[in-house]
């Protein structure tokens, strides 16, 4: 057998290991209910409840940020994050959290936001402009 063939087999074996590890390390998307049941790290996708206040008071603790998120099943849960409030957080439409349930609060280790960025979505903010233009006439 050619040496390169042996090497090839070894490489393929490593590649299979890589792919298995991808799935072994991979996390799951779930809801707050799943998080409560499993008690393991998972991803929760949801939307920010904008009617409730965001809690970030750097004068008390610069590393405590809390907010209320509604997951895809419509269940709301308080989320705490150890760190500063991410920029643009108020404007986020969809939030992807990584973390787990501790008590009644979801402790997020990572927050990823999808913003309806004014930079790449076709949403117009013309109301204000229209208003002033009408006044000027």
């Amino acid at each position, binding site marked *: 057998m050619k040496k390169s063939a042996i090497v090839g087999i070894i490489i393929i074996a490593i590649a299979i290991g890589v792919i298995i590890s991808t799935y072994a390390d991979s996390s*799951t998307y779930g809801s707050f209910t799943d998080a409560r049941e499993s008690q393991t790290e998972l991803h929760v996708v949801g939307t920010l409840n904008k009617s409730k206040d965001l809690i970030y008071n750097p004068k008390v603790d610069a*590393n405590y940020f809390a907010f209320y998120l509604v997951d895809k099943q419509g269940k709301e849960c308080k989320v705490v994050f150890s760190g500063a*409030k991410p920029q643009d957080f108020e404007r986020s439409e*969809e939030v992807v959290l990584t973390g787990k349930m501790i008590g009644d609060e979801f402790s997020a280790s990572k927050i990823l936001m999808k913003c309806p960025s004014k930079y790449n979505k076709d949403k117009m903010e013309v109301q204000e402009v229209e208003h002033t233009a009408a006044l000027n006439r």
Partner: protein
Amino acid sequence: MDIQFAGEHLLPGKLGQFFIILTFGSALISAISYYFATVKDTNDDSWKRIARLSAWVNTFAVVGIGASLFYIIYSHYFEYNYAWAHSSRSLPVYYIISSFWEGQEGSFWLWMFWQSVLTNVLIQRARTWENPVMTIIMLSQVFISSMLLGVEILGLRIGSSPFILLRDAVEGPIFSRPDYLSLIPDGNGLNPLLQNYWMVIHPPTLFLGFASMIVPFAYAIAGLWQKRYKEWVTAALPWALFAVMVLGTGIIMGSFWAYEALNFGGFWAWDPVENASIIPWLTLIAAVHVMIAYKNSGHSYFTATFLVLISFVLVLYASFLTRSGILGETSVHSFTDLGMFGHLLTYLLVFFILAVGFLIARWKDLPITKKDEETYSREFWLFIGALVLTVSCIQVIATTSIPVFNAIFGTKIAPPANVFQHYHQWQVPFAIVISLISGFAQYLKYKNTDPRKLYIKLVMIIIIAVMITSAFAYIADVYHNVMYVILTFAAVFSLCCNVPFLIDALKGKWKLAGASIAHIGFAFLLLGALVAAATSKVVSINTSGVGFGDEFDKSNNAKENIILYENEPVRMDQYTVTYKGDSTVGVNTYYKINYKTINQTTRKVMEEFDLYPNAQQNAKMQTIVASPDTRHYLLHDIYTHVSSVPLKTETAEHDDHTGHSEDEGYDQPATYEVAQGDTIRYREGIIIVKGINRNATVEKIPLGKNDVAIALKLQVIAKNKTYEIEPIFLLKGGNKFDFGKTVADVGLKFRFTDVHPDKNKLELMVYQKPLAEKKWVVLKAIKFPFINFFWAGNILMMVGFLLSIFRRNKEIKVI
């Protein structure tokens, strides 16, 4: 439908759209003509003439698109969606350039532009390779230009044009008004994160890299097509090196931009978009090595061809990942979907099938050696190294592609929760193997090497490397982790193996030095990346945060942000850090953060510097966009960014307005009955009653016979300063008046309101300004040791590639 809209400039858009059609058409004609020029074996070169002409027309049209688009953005014609969405009037010219490629269309244009530059070079230099190579490249040009078409064919929209009018792109009631343009005074502006000089040069470099990947691909296809199996490798090698160099530079610029301008807190985050750019780079760098192996030994032909072909397919896969919107929830900064999913996939599949098809069709003819490589030969280890690089690439692809698997199989798998740990458990061992091979393979000869001589050399090097490794691991503090020590050894070993070659090169053979310089660069890159990532230390650890319940504290999260009040120094690591105030320049507010190192025994300031992290405040959105500032040292960086600042709108509320009563803006006054010599204590100092001035006068008020004007002589001592002040009491015509005096510096106002001769007391009212809210910033500071090794290593690597390009280019001319 038939409204006459006022103030629109339709000509540049029409012209631009015409150029798009022209680009697409000329690319198509050129590709077809080059195809016939290749397959028709006639002496008549009419096909080639048509093809070249179309290629030149194509270049002209591509430049035309760019000029039209630039003109639209530069003139602020917001009737065009692209200008409206990506620019604004206040944008300086050099950022107009970056707004150009903020959108997908602009970045496609950039790709197309570079591809046409490359076609012109190839027309000049490719000689016998021109026809087949250009067929492939023009085919790619057809696909990219079709992305900009923006026309509907059979109800299917093909591509997205940058010349679409705002009123066609966006729904809105205002577009029924003929004068709608007057209601749109300004564009949306460029994402503030992209307003950075790196964003002016990073995308063009990256896209030149992507665009130049087509050239080795086209040569490989041409080699198979024309059955010039062996020749293409030599011809394509300088191009492959060029692509590796430029793409590598582009990637590293992106990394530097992320480090300098974004608050990622690092230089590589394993974000899917970053991964997408490194995937094709890994396979092409592997390809370069086996191409050299094949040239010198005749081994690894299939591996070389396959890797070159797959590299460009992976470029297309990377574009598909970042541009189709499939990454969705896994990445923050991929493009949003422009409805190009199918289009991008077609582009990818056509080139994939082209590559696989040619390989299968020519399989029996391929010059694959049946002979086994010797273990002590360079070609064998080049081959192994290339395979390890490929597997490393597969690992990155596998994890990055999780959303793709989800889309195909309908699963809902999430990416690993701990991204760094996941990638590093694989990439660190791969880096170790590659680094070791890049060292000892230098001492192997092609075909075969005398093992004994090899071992004698290597033993010496290993001894030196072990000594350097132990010293370095101790200094850089990476000896706690076995993997880190092994990686350090591997990098140092590679360094020790390659340096002698560099010395040889400096003695005169500098043209041969490319490989050793690139490998030295790679070794430094690994050391820098390892130490900076493994021992980076958050220096702004907050020890004060309390009061949010036990549950929260138990989670053991590092408290990495710290609040600083103005002029109140805080100890962080070895530094005494003080927030000294802010200043606003344009849209940015710069926060002056003073760092001091104070010797604890002598109290002497050993070192002092200021950093100016900035934040763009968006009052309307109530958000900030922060950018870090970094202090660079030879061996480490101090990196600082603000995580939170008081919003400007909150602090600007209490302006003094006219028309309010004079006492407004002060707290409730305190009334004292005082006598000479009394002392009143107040919040920030003391007030001493010095005495009475009986001869006081009030300006413009003449005193009558029975009128009395008395001034109270006061002394205010506050903040180590003394102020003298005399509020006046006036008795005129039997009525009492008083004239208060203020000491603005300390925010005090005094009124001398009455005299009580019976008690021998004087009535004094003291008004005090409310305690001003202290200014504060929340910041995060990180120390990155040895990060300059990382940057310097990258630069060395690129220099190495450049030297190799010269060398390999020369070899073409010889043949």
